[in-house]
């Protein structure tokens, strides 16, 4: 069972707040859109939730498979 951060791309405006909150997992490409590097390890779960909460357009979601 893995926890991932998924981006709702049509909603994402490339504001970049997510990468500020969680730079360990999210970086920004040359146009400002998030690149999610990995699954969310347990120790970063809280920050991942915060990143999802911080997104101004609610484009970031935490999904568990």
């Amino acid at each position, binding site marked *: 069972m893995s926890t991932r951060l998924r981006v709702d791309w049509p*909603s994402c405006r490339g504001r*970049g*707040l997510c990468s*500020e909150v969680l730079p360990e997992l999210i970086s*920004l490409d040359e146009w*400002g859109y998030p690149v999610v590097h990995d699954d969310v390890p347990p120790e970063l779960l809280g920050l991942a939730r915060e990143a999802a909460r911080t997104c*101004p357009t609610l484009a970031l979601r935490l999904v568990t498979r």
Partner: protein
Amino acid sequence: MTGPFLWYANRGTGVVLLVLLTVTALLGVLATHGAAGGRVPRFLPQAVHRTLSLTCAALLLAHVTTAVVDEYVDIRWWQVLLPVGATYRPLWLGLGTVAFDLVLVVVATSLLRARLPHRAWRTLHVSAYACWALSVAHGLGIGTDAGSPWARRTGLVCVAAVALAGAARLAGLGLTRWRRARATAADALLVTGGGR
């Protein structure tokens, strides 16, 4: 129950709320501006906006509670929620009541933001501007200190600040719309140019 403490508490929270609500609104506008990469992280105005607005909500609760509890003026508890039937300055009180209702709506929807469709949340959140305006009007009409020079100056600064911020926000929205329209026109060229 009555006494000067309740009255001063009510007046004090009122004035502080005027300033803090203004700052909250300004932070809200600031939070929509720009993207990551500057010296100030973008999540900061957003985070402070959220925290400050909850602080304002708490102060507001104190403000209305002192108003209701103080028997010097006859304000009943239900007049906090419904703008009808008040005997003390009904018009100005009513404005405050509607503002209070809007605060409840804005705070509730924002606490539940993740569960709402983003568009719905955003539309409701815009009512915060109306909420702020009603609060200012309420203060001007019903406030004991409304006449004094320092209150006037403070009020003027607050109104000017939010007016400026609001105008900047509208301009920003207009710019985004213009940019999108230009991009769509460019794509039309790209699509017809590509062809099959």
